[in-house]
Each structure stands twice: as structure tokens, then as C-alpha cells.
């Protein structure tokens, strides 16, 4: 076979395609896959954050409900600090939600600047990974996950407040010492995945533009 015969062989696929396709199955599979893809994207983008925020909100609602129930039943006397704590809880959640929303908006705007070519698609993906990586150790990131830490501290404060015992540091510190290593391990694992992606995109760009 020479080069021209090779091209001719290649073109035979247009008249007689390599495969047949079950059209009915495709008609069923495409919209289903489309829905799965959207769900998965939403899960990846928002999942971790909303899970953290939702848990924090639920935790704060339950503990503050217990606190104000105890006050209304006359078990404990209300102080100004109860309302200050409630304000801190709500404020932290609002601040975190705004920080996350602004951060996503800014990045979405940046992503729109990329074109449709293969190279631009790789650069867009690289920029997504860089965006995730850039959030490590940033103030914005601390703000985003602040409700979790705040909910933990306020929950302990309410428990001590209801029990009438003075605030003891041992339990909260023990809890934080238990959570932090898991948090760090998860963060490192996630960062490793992101770096692997980054490496892969770098390789593809290198293949497109050797020596650049």
C-alpha cells in the first residue's frame, strides 16, 4: 500500500462506516447522559462547599433552637452574648456565601475569554485547575469554609451555656485535633489530584507547542 492508497482506504469509511449505531438507544442515552453530566458538574462545583455550608447551617439552627428553647422555658437566663453569638453565626454564613458567589462569578467571567479551539479548551481547563489550586491557603478560601469552624465553636459554646458549666477548652481542642488531620489529609489528596491534572494539561500544551 502506498500513501495514496492509504488515503483511499481511509475514505471507504465514509461510504461504509466502521460501525452501525442503534439509533433508538442513542436517542435514549444522550439526554440521560446529558442530565448525568450536568448533575456531576454541579456536584463537583458546588457539592463540597454546599455540604459544608449546609451542615454548618443545620448545626447552628439546632443548637440555637435548643438555646432559645432553654431560655423560653426559664432553664437559663438570656444575656446579650446569646444574640451576639447568633449574629456572629448568621454573619459568618452570609459572608461565606457572598465570598463564594463573588469568587465563582469572577472566574466564570475569566473563563469566557477562551475560544473554542483544542488549545483554548486545554488552557480553559488549566485555568480551572489553577483557580482551584490558587484557593489553597488564601483568605477567600478561609472565608468560604469559615462557617464550619464557626458552627463548631458556637455549638460548644451553646452546650456549655445550657449545661451552666464554665467554658472548658479541652473538649473543643480535642475535637479540632481530631478533625484537622482528616481535613489536611483530604486537602492534600485533592491537591495531588489537581496537580496531576495540571501536569497532564501541561503535557498536552507541550505537545501542541513544543519548546514554548
Amino acid at each position, binding site marked *: 500500500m502506498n*500513501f495514496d492508497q492509504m488515503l483511499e*482506504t*481511509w475514505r471507504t469509511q465514509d461510504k461504509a*462506516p*466502521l460501525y452501525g449505531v*442503534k439509533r433508538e*438507544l442513542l436517542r435514549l442515552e444522550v439526554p440521560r*447522559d446529558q442530565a448525568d453530566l450536568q448533575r456531576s458538574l454541579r456536584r463537583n462545583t458546588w457539592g463540597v462547599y454546599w455540604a459544608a455550608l449546609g451542615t454548618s447551617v443545620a448545626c447552628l439552627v439546632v443548637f440555637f433552637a435548643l438555646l432559645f428553647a432553654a431560655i423560653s422555658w426559664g432553664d437559663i437566663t438570656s444575656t446579650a452574648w446569646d444574640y451576639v453569638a447568633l449574629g456572629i453565626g448568621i454573619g459568618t454564613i452570609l459572608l461565606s456565601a457572598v465570598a463564594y458567589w463573588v469568587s465563582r462569578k469572577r472566574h466564570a467571567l475569566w473563563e469566557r475569554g477562551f475560544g473554542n479551539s483544542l*488549545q483554548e479548551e486545554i488552557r480553559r481547563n488549566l485555568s480551572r485547575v489553577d483557580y482551584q489550586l490558587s484557593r489553597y491557603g488564601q483568605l477567600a478560601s478561609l472565608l468560604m469554609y469559615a462557617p464550619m469552624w464557626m458552627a463548631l465553636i458556637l455549638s460548644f459554646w451553646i452546650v456549655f451555656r445550657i449545661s451552666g458549666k464554665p467554658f472548658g477548652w479541652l473538649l473543643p481542642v480535642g475535637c479540632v485535633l481530631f478533625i484537622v488531620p482528616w481535613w489536611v489529609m483530604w486537602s492534600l489528596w485533592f491537591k495531588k489530584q489537581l496537580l496531576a491534572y495540571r501536569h497532564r494539561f501541561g503535557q498536552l500544551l507541550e*505537545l501542541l507547542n513544543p519548546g514554548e
Partner: protein
Amino acid sequence: MLKAKRNQVFEEWMEAHKAILFKVARAYGATHADREDLFQQIAVQVWNSVEAFRGEAKVTTWIYQVALNTALAWNRKERKHGRGRQDLEAATGLLISPAGRDSRLEWIYERIAELDEVSRSLALLMLDGFSYRDMSQILGLSESNVGVKINRIKATLIAQLAKDSNDEL
């Protein structure tokens, strides 16, 4: 765009250009199950892209662009999960395998599979007769860069042809 209209355009595109999807799936998928999976992923992305198509490029160029972008993203996912997939286990039965096999065509796909992922895209476009201009638009490279890469791919293929022609081709 209405869903019915989108479905209609998708059906028309699939009917006229399904060969592109088969070629990309065949070139990037190592097993039959991988090819089915990739074919399905590309079909989903083509369906997604219908609304964004403004008619500035030819439909074939557009579909190739979507298909190649998806193929590279799909490979990334496969690597991330690092799963070895079994043909029978993962096959959905979406694609019907051909009854007969063309050994020459198999040879071409084997040579394409030996290329790196970017060169594979270029080889497919070259074999389908795309101009350097179209290729540069799809890949986002300069035309001269495309020219250099295509010449290298051609040289590799010609050398392989010369080597293997005495044996089985």
C-alpha cells in the same frame, strides 16, 4: 432553541456526520467498550453544542472540534480513575461492530494509535482532507506549526508503509 428543534438538528448531524464520531472514537478508544463510551460522550457533547453553533464554521469542522476536545477530556478522566475496563462488562451495545474487517484500515488505526494524542488529532484531520487553515482553527495552532507537524506525521506514516508493505499490506 426549542428542545424539539435541537433534537432535529442533532439527528440530522448524526445522520450526515456520524463517521467523524466513529473515527475519533476508534482512534482514541483502545477497546470496544472504550469506543462505545467515548462515542456516547461525544454524542452528548455534540447535542450540547447544537445551541452554540452559529454557522461561522462548517458543520464538519465544528463536529470534529467538539469530538476531539471530548476525546482528550475523556482520556483525562480515564487516567484519573485509572480503571482497567473489561470489554464485555462495560459495553452498552450502542455500537454494532462490522461484520468484516479491513486489514488495511486496521493498520492505519494501529499507526494512529502509536502517535501522541495531539498528533492523533492532526492525523485524523489530515486523512479526512482538512486544509491547514481548518486544522489551525480546530487546534488553535498557527498554520506553519500545523504544516511542520503534518509533514512529520506524513514522514512517519510513509516510513511505516515502506517497512510494512513487504509483509502484510
